[in-house]
């Protein structure tokens, strides 16, 4: 299910009362409906599924996750188990860890 891909919003316009965006997916530009993401701005990244932007892609969080992956082996060797700290950092907000 749920083939959705990230793309960068390059333009926004109103069409038939619906906000629409031009979204650039690595060179392929496609019209995407912004009805569910009306607050997104030009230059931001959106997750797009069957022609609809369903969520904003949080760039900071993406980079934090990649940084976590880069450090995974090293962390364990140096500090033993520092996973909890690193994972919390990647989540951006530790409060998101529901329990």
């Amino acid at each position, binding site marked *: *299910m*749920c*083939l*959705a*891909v*990230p*793309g*960068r919003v390059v333009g926004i316009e109103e069409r*038939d009362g*619906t906000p629409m965006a031009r979204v650039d*997916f*690595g060179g392929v530009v496609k019209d995407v*409906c912004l*009805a*569910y*993401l*009306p607050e997104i701005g030009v230059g931001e*990244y959106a*997750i797009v*599924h*069957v*022609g*609809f932007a*369903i*969520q904003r*892609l*949080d*760039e900071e*969080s*993406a980079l*934090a*996750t*990649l940084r976590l*992956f*880069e450090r*995974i*082996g090293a962390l*364990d060797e140096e500090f033993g188990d520092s*996973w909890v700290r690193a*994972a919390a950092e*990647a*989540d*951006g907000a530790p409060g*998101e*860890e*529901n*329990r």
Partner: protein
Amino acid sequence: MKYLDEFQDPALARRLLDDITRTVTRPWALMEVCGGQTHSIIRHGIDQLLPGHIELIHGPGCPVCVTPLEVIDKALEIASRPGVVFCSFGDMLRVPGSDRDLFRVKGDGADVRVVYSPMDALRIAQQAPEREVVFFGVGFETTAPAIAMAARQAKRLGVRNFSLLVSHVRVPPAIEAIMRSPDCRVQAFLAAGHVCSVMGTLEYPALADTHKVPIVVTGFEPLDILEGIRRAVRQLERGEHRVENAYPRAVRPQGNPVALGVLGEVFTTTDRAWRGIGTIADSGWRLADAYRDHDAEHRFEVTGPATEEPTVCRAGEVLQGLIKPHECAAFGTACTPRTPLGATMVSSEGACAAYYLYRRLATPRTEETASID
């Protein structure tokens, strides 16, 4: 593509795999719920790279596969009617109904069209007011907002010749049903990231608590899937059962509030049959009564003969990891990717179809027709 390619990096994948290998001390059975994740796992060969202790059970999360036979038969009947333009996502065309599929109906002269988005179908309806345009609305919570918007726009713009055949399914009731099964082998779930992009994660802590099962919200690229597995295994090894978000770049706890509002307005929760599994209470969405005029089931009053799934098919047990695909009597004989009996053999990511292919590799035959066992 930015924010896609980075999450396919082989060197980082190695790091994650090494960490999983270091962590795991005994056998664990994890279920990835989403068919998109299964696709990625097979596509990248992730299952073969994992330590032997970790078993991935491919879950029921392919909306194409779990769409019940009854609904497919309805779709086939509606599509066959004169004057109807039947629009669908591409992957539904090959799913067999009782005696044929949409390809066959198209071959018989029906106007069946593949569209990328339900809005394309709405546009077709606006451009051809003399035709009855029907969209086949299947999918999980990720796809539902798009379908809902098409219904809403049709109502708002008064596009009277547009209707939807809706068979949406929801993930949390499926997880609940799997956990309630007395023989359930699943010890942790990788929850479907893009479902949570829409719905958020607040439905899951109760499930994790009740069933003492770790649930890790997981993305779709190889690194995302490995990270989901890594976190699930960490929890299992520590005896924890929390909800974790391993896909924070696309998932907020509260989901997409605008979409949730529209979903609540357009859809009503309903019991839904899952192909190969059976009926799960409250596991589906149908169009709300206010949208009755755009409900294809209402408009076309389809009353086909009651359809039954082949009893020989044991897809339900396969989906729960209770049996391996080849332990089903029909596997590789009556049931092959060419002639699927159940959900798990329909798409190439289904557990049975994947197993079929890999068994062929283990015992090579040049003819697909050769029996497998």
